[in-house]
């Protein structure tokens, strides 16, 4: 009998390869998940993503209602449309999850992220960093003679763009909060 020549992940027939990853476009969705603020709830949400092989691009979590013991988790995830549907259905199944909103499909939304960037440099580079920070409306939170810490808020894309510009100018370290998002309008 012939040896099995199967490359890992290459089989079209695998029972686990439920979707052809190339058949559908990969989309990025921002999900807002309202949960009970109880021990372990974040682990349940993250465990779902790792256990079922879903992606997490960004994750933020904080309490939003102290008396009601509610927290809001904002996850940016990617996947084919059917995977995104699965993720939402699976999230909805977790007992302490109260609401799952897909901000990407539920109408327009605002997304903001905050980042702190440490940029070290002298002379022209230092001047240029400051000039660009001004253009991006980043503010200086700390300064030494040879470094700045900038604070910037905006969409993840804006922060990416700013970080890309700072890299050649001496970017040392970056801390990002991940995305916080809300739908627009009264609802």
């Amino acid at each position, binding site marked *: *009998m*012939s040896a*099995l*020549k*199967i490359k890992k992940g290459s*089989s*079209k*027939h*695998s*029972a686990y390869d*439920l979707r052809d990853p190339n058949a559908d476009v990969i989309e990025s969705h921002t999900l807002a998940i309202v949960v*009970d603020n109880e*021990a*372990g709830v974040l*682990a*349940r949400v993250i*465990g779902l993503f790792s*256990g079922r092989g879903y992606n997490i691009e960004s994750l933020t979590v904080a309490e939003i209602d102290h008396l009601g013991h509610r927290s809001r988790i904002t996850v940016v995830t990617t996947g084919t449309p*059917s995977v995104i*549907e*699965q993720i939402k*259905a*699976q999230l*909805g*199944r*977790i*007992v*302490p999850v*109260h609401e799952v909103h897909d901000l990407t499909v539920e109408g327009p939304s605002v997304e903001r992220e905050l980042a702190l960037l440490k940029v070290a440099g002298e002379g022209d580079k230092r001047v240029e960093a400051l000039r660009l920070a001004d253009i991006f409306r980043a503010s200086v939170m700390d300064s030494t003679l040879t470094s700045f810490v900038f604070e910037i808020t905006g969409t993840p894309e804006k922060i990416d763009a700013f970080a890309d510009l700072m890299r050649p100018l001496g970017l040392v370290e970056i801390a990002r909060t991940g995305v916080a998002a809300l739908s627009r309008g009264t609802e």
Partner: protein
Amino acid sequence: MTRQMTGAKMVVQALKDQGVDTVFGYPGGAVLPIYDEIFQQNDIRHILVRHEQGAVHAAEGYARATGKPGVVLVTSGPGATNAVTGLTDALMDSIPIVVLTGQVPTFMIGNDAFQEADTVGITRPCTKHNWLVKDTAKLSDTIHQAFHVATSGRPGPVLVDIPKDVQFASATYVTPQKANTKHYQPKVKGDREAITQLVELIEQAERPIFYTGGGVINSGPAASQLLRELVEGTGFPITSTLMGLGAYPASGKAWLGMLGMHGLYEANLAMHGCDLMINVGARFDDRITGRLQDFSPHSKKAHIDIDPSSINKVIHVDIPIVGDVAHVLEDLLNIWKARGRKTNAEGLAKWWGKIDEWRKVDCLKFTQSGNTIKPQHALARLEALTKGHDRYICTEVGQHQMWAAQYLGFEDPNRWMTSGGLGTMGYGFPASIGVQMAHPDALVINVAGEASWLMNMQEMGTAVQYRLPVKQFILNNERLGMVRQWQELLHGERYSQSWSEALPDFVKLAEAFGAKGIICKDPKDLDDAIMEMIEHDGPVIMDCLVEKHENCFPMIPSGEPHNKMLLGENASTKDAIKSGGAVLV
């Protein structure tokens, strides 16, 4: 009226208030206060198992045979980790189980204390939900929530971890009526518009089929009743997964038998050729669908499931209906009747003609000849000799399990307990103990393979201690038969580690535990041996020596679609599984 009591007392009070009559468990340091309370009461019966895995499977058996949640009590650390296989099994098969574990005192958690394990961490992925209770004031409320979550929506196992200091401390007891269960209320009614769409398809379909699963059983007896009414009313053929056997009676004339990898020829071909598939409480498992691209290519598909995440997970369906099976079927029947009970009689008659041709293949036929008992024959005789009894069947996992599903007929729901989703060897024996506890006067038989049975054989002690007359019907092929079959089909007949050597003398083993042992090798003695087994008033191990190299057919080789089945007897098994299917299990 508020009642102050210790956490340990609360546990017992909460169980009583939840209507629990039986707890399967095993004591240890971290649950001693609870065991002390159990000692001082008579309402709840505690069954001392011999291994915590056995406790969980017994509770699963109890739950499946009664429709009530099974309850388990074990200690911290090793007690909790031993329960993990059972929890995973119950999660995969959606069985309501409440497991209570002891934990080291709250002030020692995280210190690697003696017998400490991160129980809620370890069991988070294998429970529907779990709780660590750090405050006695929350204990009774949490236990009531646990029962609510285990039994609502899609059922499943839950776990409550109770530190020892929480058991000793006192607080106010909360009754089930006052407990906080509002936040978890899964939707049970299906969307009427979708149900009406399905009725329209039912009225027109030429080649319809009901594909039913464990969800019908879990929904309760009313669901099976409504399903039967719908099947009789429409005259549509019906097949079921392993998990759903008994929802529709095997003697019913619309019954096609089980479908799937080892399902019946007519059932699988009808699934492949249908134009309307009505999935009722099944989940398009990979044992059922075979190759996804070729799964039932010409059908419209409707899917009734209480769990929204089951819908469109594997197979895209045209009509998704989220809701409880009984609720949805009731609405479906009402709408269908109100519109005049229409079906496409002409199409149906042709469809049945086709199905009858497939039935003529007689895919389960076998020939019993010579001096060795064929496992199929053993089961056919077991069926014939026990049919009229008030009978419950458990199984282990392997070939014998599939043969049991094929050759035994189930007339009612909750009479068939087998490990479907996880395929846990060692499930059947403890499950049979749980079933017998629930139904002391019934005939409870565990159809076992010798290898599976050994995995939880310590439970012989439990069966004997509580005088549970469970019948262990071991189809002994001295092989890990199912593994051997795959090696024959897939690995060039290199039978790596797939035989059972140094097997015990099962008769002496039974006797060593104080039970009865029977051995049977000759087909001539088979009926007498089975009769002796069922007539004996006490636990029996029957060692039925069967043909060692029998393969289980029909079989859809993994990676193949439904219409590429291997049939029995003369099937060519060499190289039957292509390399693409070889990665599958």
